[in-house]
Structures are given as C-alpha cells and as structure tokens.
C-alpha cells in the first residue's frame, strides 16, 4: 500500500488565510496554510481544538470561502461544494427519511444516473462497506458505526476525486473505531481514492496516514508535516508507532 503511484497533486492548499470578523473582534482562524496532497495519498490533519482544522476542512469542501489564498483540486480552484469531493461528517449527516440505499443513491440521482445503473452502483457501494443486508433499513435502526459506513458509501457513490472526512469516527466507541479503521484502509486500497482525514486523535492519525499535517493554534497554522513510514497494518504496540505518536504529541504540545 505504501508503494502507491504518487506523482500528481490532487489537493493544493496555497497561502490560505481565513479571518472571521465581527463588530467587536477579529479572529484569525487560519494563517498562511500550505500543503499538498498527492493522488492516492492518505493524509491526516491533527491539531488541538481551536487550531482551525475544521475551518480548513470546510474551506477545502467549498462550504466556506478563504479570506486570502486558496485551494485547488486537480489544478482547478475550489469555489463551492461539489461532487468531486465526497464528504463524511462526524454526525453522519444521513437523511433520516431515506433508507440506507436511498441515502447512498442521493448523489447519483442528482447526477442523473438512471436505473438500473443507479441501483447497481448502490449495491456495489453497500457491499464495499459491508452493509448489503441493510439496504431497506432507516438510519434510526443503525448503530453509529453502521451509520458512518452509510456516510462513506454515500460519499463514494458519486466517485469523487477526494474523500474528505471530518472526525468521522469521533462519535463511535473505541472498539468499533478500530474496526472501522481497518475497513477504511481496505476501502482506500480497493478504490484508490485520495483521502484527507481530520482528527484530534494522534493515534488515529498514525494508524491511518501516509503523512500527518500537524497544526498549531492561535493563529491556526501548519507546524510540521510528518511522513509515517510504517507498513500497514500498523500495531499500536509497535515501538516505532509509539515514537511517531510521541513526536506528534510533542509538536502539538500535549
């Protein structure tokens, strides 16, 4: 998996500033953020709360505008949300009135994908995330881990360039989280997607990422980018793993 062909830049964040201004004060959420994500790469963004990682995620998603600088995707500037970036949210964001398969089909409907291609694609995605038996269930009937699998399937269904994930496993228990890490890496290997994954959990970042973008707060900025050179699957008990965790924690100042 670490032998991936990595040559083309998928995401480039260049001199990005994000300033929130209100009547009383100015908050500098992001200051001169620069980094790039190569095609097929798995990059995690970690940092303490208030470091602007969620703001960064939202700017890359096109849900918020940069104050200065910008983001490009395959060389094209990001100007708004789009199906080239599949989003996975911490709170799942599933449409509760739609069944699992209808949730996964949502983006395909918007793209005008007709039956039977649409159903075939939905089935393929549900198999990929291991939910093929739950096509007709409503989100309320699913556990947190299963809900997030639906979120991943829905994001992948429209075949985005980039999978953007904002603390996707923050709301599930530790045991389920370990299982989902393994599944996500399998899915990544199978689909060759580029993944940008925001988390505050350093161990999670070291488990998953090819490279970890370590951020600092006040103002939100990139402190360092750490390449994690450990073969997958990675074990937390591995001393090298522990060294990476220690080093990144040191950078964050935990």
């Amino acid at each position, binding site marked *: 998996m670490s032998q991936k062909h990595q040559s083309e830049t998928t995401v480039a964040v260049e001199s990005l500033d994000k300033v929130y201004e209100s009547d009383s004060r100015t908050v500098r959420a992001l200051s001169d953020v620069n980094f790039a994500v190569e095609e097929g790469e798995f990059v995690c963004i970690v940092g303490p709360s208030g470091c602007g990682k969620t703001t960064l995620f939202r700017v890359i998603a096109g849900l918020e505008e940069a104050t200065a600088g910008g983001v490009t995707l395959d060389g094209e500037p990001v100007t708004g949300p789009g199906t080239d970036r599949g989003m996975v949210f911490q709170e799942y964001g599933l449409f509760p009135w*739609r069944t699992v398969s209808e949730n996964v089909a949502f983006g395909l409907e918007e793209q005008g994908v007709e039956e039977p291609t649409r159903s075939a694609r939905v089935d393929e995605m549900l198999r990929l995330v291991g939910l093929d038996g739950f096509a007709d269930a409503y989100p309320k009937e699913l556990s947190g881990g299963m809900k997030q699998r639906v979120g991943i399937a829905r994001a992948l269904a429209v075949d985005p360039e980039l999978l953007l994930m904002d603390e996707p496993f923050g709301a599930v228990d530790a045991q389920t989280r370990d299982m989902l890490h393994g599944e996500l890496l399998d899915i990544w290997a199978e689909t060759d997607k580029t993944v940008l994954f925001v988390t505050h959990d350093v161990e999670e970042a070291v488990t998953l990422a090819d490279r970890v973008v370590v951020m600092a707060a006040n103002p939100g900025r990139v402190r360092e980018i750490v390449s994690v050179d450990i073969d997958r699957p990675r074990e937390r008990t591995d001393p090298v793993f522990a060294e990476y965790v220690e080093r990144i924690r040191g950078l964050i100042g935990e």
Partner: protein
Amino acid sequence: MSNDEVNANVAFSETDERARLLDRLAQFSSEQTGLAFAGFAGFLTIWYVAALFQPTYLLPSPVEVFAAFVTELTAPATLAIPLTGIELPATRLLAKLVQSLYHYVPGLLVGTTLGISAGIAMGWNDRVDSVFTPVTRILRPIPPLAWIGFAVIWLGVNHKGATFIVAIGSFWINFYSAYGGVEGVSADLKEVAATLGVDDDLTMIRKVVVPAASPSIMTGIRTSIGQCWMIVVAAELIVGVGVGYEILNTAQNLAMDVSVAYMLVISLVFLVSDGLFRRVERRALEWRA
C-alpha cells in the same frame, strides 16, 4: 470484517427491545382501556341521572339524544349538489353533514396548501421573510371568524363565505407549522446535499427541506383538520347551512335533544378524520426515531 457479529448483535438487541416494549404496552393498554371505559360509563350515568329531574329543553337525557340521532340519521331528505342542480335522496343528518363538508373540505385544502407554501417560502428565504413578517404579525391575531363580514359582502351568505372562513383558519395553522419546520432544518443536511450535487433552491427545498420539515408540516395539517371543524360550526351559524347551523336552529326551537345529536356529529366526524390522518401521518413518518 466482523459484520455478522454486528448484525447479530443489532438483531438481538432489537428483538429484545421490541419484546419488552410490547409487553409494557400490553399491560399499559389493558389498564388504560378499563379506566377509559369506567370514565365514560360514569359520565353517561351522571348525565342520565341529572336529566331525570330536568325537562328535555333544559337537559336532554342520553337516551333522548340517541333517539334524536337515529331519527335524524334515518329521516329522508334531499341532498342538493351545489353548482350542478342535481338532487339526490339522502337522510336529514347526511344532507346537513354533506353541506358542512362543502365548506370544510375546500376550505381546508385551499388554506392548507396556501399556508404550507407561504410558510416554506418565508422559512426558506430571508428576504421574503423580512418583507412579510410585519404583515403576518398584524394579521395573525385576528380570529378567522372576524372576517365573516367580508366573507358575506364579497362572497355572499352561502357556501363560499363559510369556505373562506375555514380557509383563513387553516392557513394560519399551516403557515406557522411549515415556517417553524423549515427554519429548524439542520444546516448539516443542507451542506451534505450541496456536496452531493444539489445546487439550486428548488431541488434543495423539494429533496431536503420539505422532507426534513415534514414532521412539523404534518402536525400542522392534523391540527388544522381538528380546528377547522370548530371554525366551520361557527361560520355556519352565520351563513345558515350545515351541521353548525342545525345546532343553533334546533336549539332555538328548544329541540335540545336534536341539537346535542348534531353536536355529537361534529365530535364523531372529528374523531374519524383525526384518526384517519393519524394513520397517514404514522405511515409517512415511520422513518422517525
């Protein structure tokens, strides 16, 4: 991946949960049914005993009311279909009820449709909201029946006048429920939809906002189904047709047993329409937690 394990766990806890819930419901409902029956029997007994010592025109007994109900239900009458000139054989009660439905159904449909549409438009668009908020604040407190003068002058003492009043009543109920529902739609869901390719307002409203607001919209419709029966009776007192008018007309002739029978008709049609809509609502919102 240990999906089977997860599935098995979920299946187990679900059946477990369901069994416990059904168990509790069964106990609950048998006790409740008993109490409800006792309450109803007690009410009838007190009414019956009280009526023994009063003339019918002051307090008709439940037996007299029931007899009057049966008489009205079976006495032959003709039913005129408005706008067509057709007259059908019917019974007195049925003819009055159908007259009321002529006001109730179109008034409810028009008021509900306009109310939901206006609520969605104002809930969705801040500019529309700003423009219309002062007007809605001024018009909202006016009771629907206060418009009766205009209803009569504009539309005449007829079906249209009563329909107009019913429409105003259901408009406001549905307007506020739709408005509140749309305002409460989570920003997350709209953002998710935007990242999945929804880039125009109409699609967003149709595929995200309306379904997300549907529990609130449904509550509005159900409330107006009930409230509009109250409004229709009041409007009919003035326009002079239907069940509402019959309640007043019979009372003016001191036929209180007949009057109460027609009061019960309102109660019955309300219970039936509310019960039917509850079923529709439950099916439409089965996705809700």
